[in-house]
């Protein structure tokens, strides 16, 4: 595959606005209200008004609380592009990709991408994500009998497979939890900022072995919106543009049959290769990694699949703390989903925008020339990657 075609999208569009609500375990606003607030703030952050917005891509979370006509909640009229999208946790990356293509083609000029969810309504996160309350019949009802509930189970089963095949250890999963917490302690909006040692990790209660509580993300109420526009429009706006220089997707389609090793080989391989090629870079050029880390294991397998560590060696790779502050491979610098906030793919995307702009404050990574964003959905089923850069000459699009 080559990007030296008549249309090369690398660097032709940029993220110019970021809006984030409070990240909370409390119920404040409905998902619809949260989305409206995040969009308001993203538009203002870009130095635009709602009248400038002519595209809206909407992604609801596990509660399914948003509608495609979210624009009515903001009085936004005459959109030229609008839909509800659902690639589960990979949607944030996908929305930005489609927005980038839309603004470069002229289908729309200013596209807002938003995620919002309100899973915490008093029922607890397990109720929202576990599925134990759903009524099923036939083959599907076997899962309830087996007690095979929710995302926690699916990812724990994947982690166990990696541990069995490659010798990945509980300490190595714990090393990810610890390094990610260290970043969270530098991020004022991260939800979990207390000290955490490896001993604390091991002492945290089991959820589903091999996962302790501290292997798992913290379900959050909130919303994040970003604004995407063309590079020409981006130049005159309020914030430094985060140019979208690489993008790609990978959706392996786990057949659940003998011979497949989908638990330990994700769509990040294909998505990453596509994004690297479009950006004209490789793993060694990435200064900051913002990876979907719903669980500690996800960080390990994703690092392998983007080529930072050979397959099977992700565990030893993370063990020395190189992902943390001051380490050689800064990863999930806002505290990720594990300790920061769980906004599906908007967690890695939002922190990537902050790092690309150089607005990370105490946690800003010096080498932010290329920031990798990995968004992932299902049980390692769907994947969308972005590579962002503040450098207007980065990428292979020849726009500079």
């Amino acid at each position, binding site marked *: 595959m080559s990007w030296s075609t008549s249309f090369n999208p690398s660097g032709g569009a940029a993220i110019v606005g970021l809006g984030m609500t409070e990240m909370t375990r409390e119920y404040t606003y409905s998902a619809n209200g949260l989305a409206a607030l995040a969009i308001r703030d993203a538009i203002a952050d870009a130095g635009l008004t709602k009248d400038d917005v002519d595209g809206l891509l909407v992604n609801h979370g596990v509660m399914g609380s948003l509608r495609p006509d979210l624009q009515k909640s903001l009085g936004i009229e005459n959109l030229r592009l609008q839909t509800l999208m659902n690639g589960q946790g990979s949607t944030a990356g996908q929305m930005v990709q489609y927005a980038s293509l839309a603004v470069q083609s002229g289908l729309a000029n200013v596209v807002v991408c938003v995620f919002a969810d309100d899973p915490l309504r008093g029922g607890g996160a397990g109720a929202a994500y576990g599925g*134990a309350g759903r009524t099923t019949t*036939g*083959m599907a009802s076997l899962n309830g009998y087996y007690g095979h509930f929710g995302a*926690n189970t699916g990812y724990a089963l994947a982690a*166990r497979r990696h541990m069995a095949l490659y010798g990945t250890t509980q300490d190595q999963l714990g090393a990810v939890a610890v390094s990610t917490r260290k970043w969270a302690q530098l991020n004022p909006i991260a939800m979990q900022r207390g000290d955490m040692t490896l001993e604390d990790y091991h002492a945290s209660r089991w959820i*589903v072995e091999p996962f302790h509580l501290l292997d798992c993300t913290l379900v959050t109420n909130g919303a994040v919106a970003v604004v995407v526009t063309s590079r020409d429009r981006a130049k005159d706006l309020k914030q430094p543009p985060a140019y979208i220089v690489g993008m790609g997707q990978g959706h392996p389609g786990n057949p*659940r049959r003998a011979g497949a090793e989908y638990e330990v080989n994700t769509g990040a391989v294909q998505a990453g290769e596509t994004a690297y090629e479009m950006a004209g870079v490789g793993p060694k050029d990435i200064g900051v990694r913002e990876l979907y880390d719903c669980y500690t294991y996800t960080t390990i397998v994703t690092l392998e699949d983007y080529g930072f560590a050979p397959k099977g060696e992700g565990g030893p790779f993370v063990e020395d703390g190189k992902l943390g502050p001051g380490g050689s491979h800064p990863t999930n610098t806002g505290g990720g989903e594990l300790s920061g906030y769980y906004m599906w793919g908007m967690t890695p995307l939002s922190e990537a925008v902050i790092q690309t702009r150089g607005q990370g404050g105490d946690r800003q990574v010096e080498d932010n020339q290329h920031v990798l964003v990995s968004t992932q959905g299902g049980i390692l089923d769907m994947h969308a990657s972005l590579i962002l850069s503040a450098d207007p000459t980065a990428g292979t699009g020849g726009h500079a």
Partner: protein
Amino acid sequence: MSRPAPTSDDASAPFFEGAARGKLMLQRCRTCSATFLPVQEVCTECLEADMEWVESSGEGTLHTFGVMHYLYHPGFAQELPYNVAVVELAEGPRMNARIDADNDSLEVGMALKVAFEEAGDVHVPVFQPA
């Protein structure tokens, strides 16, 4: 309160009827002979929609497993911690299951064979060390 019992429906009836007779039933494509966990309507290999029911050997290996400590459903209150497993059948498909063995004895790759237990109005396959 016990584990929530599965319920048979039209599409899965041959599976549960087989289970009641101690047989693990799968589906097989009449066109290309690919074998599937029920209920499969279209063959993923040849895309034909012509399935027949066949009996599995009931043999498999433990593909992966976890041990659940979190109470998602009150029916499991007396069972924590319980195992959740994925079994790779000799015919190829992988199915969710539980292993009727001590959690501490489970190892990825161990040989398994099917057994059946009563659950409400139906019988359910579980797996035991072979």
